[in-house]
């Protein structure tokens, strides 16, 4: 089959599905969408005092590759610093999951979601970072 086992695994057993308290000052929430297919993806991070992402949750309404991409994104950001998390590129997700070309936008969505969550956290913590 053209799709990697990893994709199918992430699709069938998505990791870190759920929500973190939005109002928690340590939580950053990113909400992004892909208009082609109407997918919406919510990705949340919880950042500890040393600036490390200690938890991440997501909820995605969309196709299998969108779910797999966001599932993978939450796995990857956990344990990373914000700077490290910002370095995750959609191409990394494409490579890891072997996404077909028609589904590359799903990986873009996941990258955008990480960025949006970090931006939201930063907004809560002022311009100090």
């Amino acid at each position, binding site marked *: 089959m053209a799709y990697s086992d990893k994709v199918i695994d992430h699709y069938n057993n998505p990791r870190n599905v759920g929500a973190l308290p939005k109002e928690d000052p340590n939580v950053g929430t990113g*909400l*992004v*969408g*892909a*208009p*082609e*297919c*109407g997918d*919406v993806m*919510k990705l949340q991070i919880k950042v500890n005092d040393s600036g490390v992402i200690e938890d991440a949750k997501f*909820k995605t*309404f969309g196709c299998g590759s969108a779910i797999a991409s966001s599932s993978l994104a939450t796995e990857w950001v956990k344990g990373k610093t914000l700077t490290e998390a910002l370095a995750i590129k959609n191409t990394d997700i494409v490579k890891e999951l072997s996404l077909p070309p028609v589904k590359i936008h799903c990986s873009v*969505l996941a990258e*955008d979601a990480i960025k949006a969550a970090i931006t939201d956290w930063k907004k809560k913590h002022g311009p100090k970072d």
Partner: protein
Amino acid sequence: MDYFEVFGLPRILGIDLAVLEKTFHELSRKYHPDYFSTAPPAEKTQAVRMTALLNDAYRTLRHPVRRVEYLLTLYGFKADGSKVPQALLTEVFEINEQLEEVKAGRASVEEIDSLRAQIKEKRERFDAELQEASLRWDELVKSGASEPARKEHLARLAEILSESSYIRNLERDLDKS
């Protein structure tokens, strides 16, 4: 040959459906493979290809949303998700969560009806917006507006499509569940 050319139309969005249908029938009579069953194989193949193109064009152009989507692809525009307002995304996310309840069979009839009405109202608002922007495009084309002005309006059309696509998807999902 693009779909507009198939019908001998300029790239405008205000299309009279009755005229489109009439042309569709006329062209079908000209190209349909039924009239080429005794022709040499090459002509037969050509008739099938041409009719397929005609049918694809008619299917696309007669539909007000598909028509705009097609126009945008002709100019290399793609729906861009990053410009969709957060407020709309939040709303879409919430509706999706309600839809999840409906799909799981946990919603009451009243809840489903209210959700349906909510989505329909939004879709109708987008339809009106799209129609207005489509007419504006035609005006720009007819008045020979500058390239940048046209590009800007195409971007606007892409934006409306992006926003409305979420709602249309929701409506389709609700119909299915």
